[in-house]
């Protein structure tokens, strides 16, 4: 199955499509968790990031306990400052 994940903020620049888009299509298997899904993204390990799952903020220690399903909305952001 496939799922669209949105990557915003500074993290966008770690993604293959580079600067022009924030949406990425990923393959996943039924029963996979958010943690397993996010591991498929080329994100830096040391950067704290924010994950929204169907408009709920998911604490990083809850990622492995959160199952995903088709049509979920998943957004990954890097906390940024100011502007």
């Amino acid at each position, binding site marked *: 199955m496939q799922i669209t994940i949105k990557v915003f903020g500074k993290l966008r620049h770690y993604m293959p499509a580079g600067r*022009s888009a924030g949406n990425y299509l990923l393959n996943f298997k039924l029963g996979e968790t958010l943690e397993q899904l996010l591991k498929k993204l080329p994100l830096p390990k040391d950067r704290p990031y*924010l994950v*929204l799952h169907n408009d709920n903020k998911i604490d990083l220690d809850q990622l492995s306990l959160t199952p995903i399903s088709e049509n979920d909305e998943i957004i990954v952001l890097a*906390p940024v*400052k*100011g*502007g």
Partner: protein
Amino acid sequence: MSWQQKILRVNLTTGCCNIEPLNMTWANEYLGQRGLGSKYLLEEMDPAVDALSVENKLVIATGPLTGTMASTGGRWSVITKGPLTDAIACSNSGGKFGAELKLAGYDLVIIEGKSEKAVYLHIENEKVELCDASEVWGKTVWETEGLLQKKYSDPLMRFASIGQAGENLCRYACIVNDLHRAAGRSGVGAVMGSKNLKTIAVRGTVGVKNANPEHFMKTVNAVNNRMNDREGMSRDGTLDMIDVTNSIGSLPTRNNRQVRFEGTEKLNPSAMQTPNENGHTNLITNGACFGCTIGCGRICKIDPTHFSVKDKPQYHKASGGLEYESAYALGAACGVDDIDAATYAGFLCNEYGMDPISLGGSIAAAMELFDIGAITEKHTGGIKLEFGSAQALVTISEMTARSEGFGQDIAMGSKRLTQKYGHPDLSMSVKGQEFAGYDGRSMQGMGLAYATNNRGACHMRADPYESDFNTTEIEGKAAIVKNSQDEISFIDSSGLCLFPGGCGWTLSDYLELVDGACEGTWDMDRLKQTGERIWNLERQFNLLAGLSKADDTLPKRILEEPAEVGIGKGLVCRLGEMLPEYYELRGWDEEGRPKADTLARLGLN
């Protein structure tokens, strides 16, 4: 050193320009720029005077690191009483003007009185003169700079000017330098206009000396190497933020009726960098202020076929484009998802000298008044001032810039505008200054920061971002807001920009630079105490100006109407719970007045 130890005092009433020694005791206590300028203002002026009266003063201030080799060392500020807020105003700008002023030999320029005729101030090192400005009065910022540049035939001369908005006393007129950098907030440009001062033109070749240049340069290089996370800012500028706030539900939309804007994808960095159906790309390149190694500025072009500029070739050139705040205010706040229309309104802000945040906030308030029927096409001169209308945004921005028709009401700012039409609750402002692009329901710390900021709602005076993105719980927010307000007061007084803080610098990096450049020892305790002293001095100014605890509040909408989506879903801002804790941490009494021992500890009594 790093201070020039000189002030230029310009009395516009008498026409006298004098050079005076800088009070070094104050420089050691308030550092420079925001802190030192505020100290001079409070010492020299009764805060209760009318902001647009002859008694108000305008302090143009550099910091000790302005004009040095330190990265981002081009910052300067304008300190005065703000006509938008009737509180202390301090507007910070970059570009090249501030460094040039410092290189001409001045830490501060204090402008007082009022000229009978329109004048501009011309500074070339110690040569200072007030000149007849009749050839540029009534002209835009861009025309003024062009004409004077030609007159002096000096491409290195720098200008800080008001446009027609400042001349016409628009309450949020700004002072624009280097064509598209601005001391933007609180109406400092209207104060300049009220004094009949059009421009400050400056050329400086004196240089800036450091106490220990070798040590300072080593520090500059070491600190530069630690700025290791700037790529995002260079590529996307501050606009990067729009997807973040939209995702978490903190992008004020349609005058804060909503917290998420469905048109964000048409305004975000991808939209700015992707060719449209005509093959036109909004973003041309990035731009940097003096000595900056980040370059967050956006240099953009409007699609020449867009309705806003179709027959106006003067707007087909590249100029300062949308930052996060202008994209929020001229876009989401008005429900407009047309990047060219918002860019055009932003160009007008630079050209005529208006703060885009307050312009957008005021138009958004007017759109809500129109929506509920409190104003009609009769008031607006036939304009359908509907949320989402790019045409309305463009037309009303032009009318405001030129002080025409209903534009004169928009130029009052949202507080006075909504009062005039009987709905003061619809002004999304604090102390009369319009919100920046964050919502105090999903970002509780930002709500407290808006409410307590000495210059009214503003996103640049506290740093609750990380905490707010992590949690909507309020525990600890008062301390985060208070401490970061103090730290930022220090940075704003140094001559450096705040943005390196999001690109790898820590507070210690700023401290090292100040310690490397200035006499004496600057350690973390001194940094924090200096910042706290500045914050409390500004508070004293406001209390003497007649402000009180009642002004440390937020619009009813943020306090009573829960957010509908995002991380703040179902929440209102819990300001009432955070404010007493904040006052206590500040050492203020229950009415928000600094206690005697707080003032004594900070040397303010």
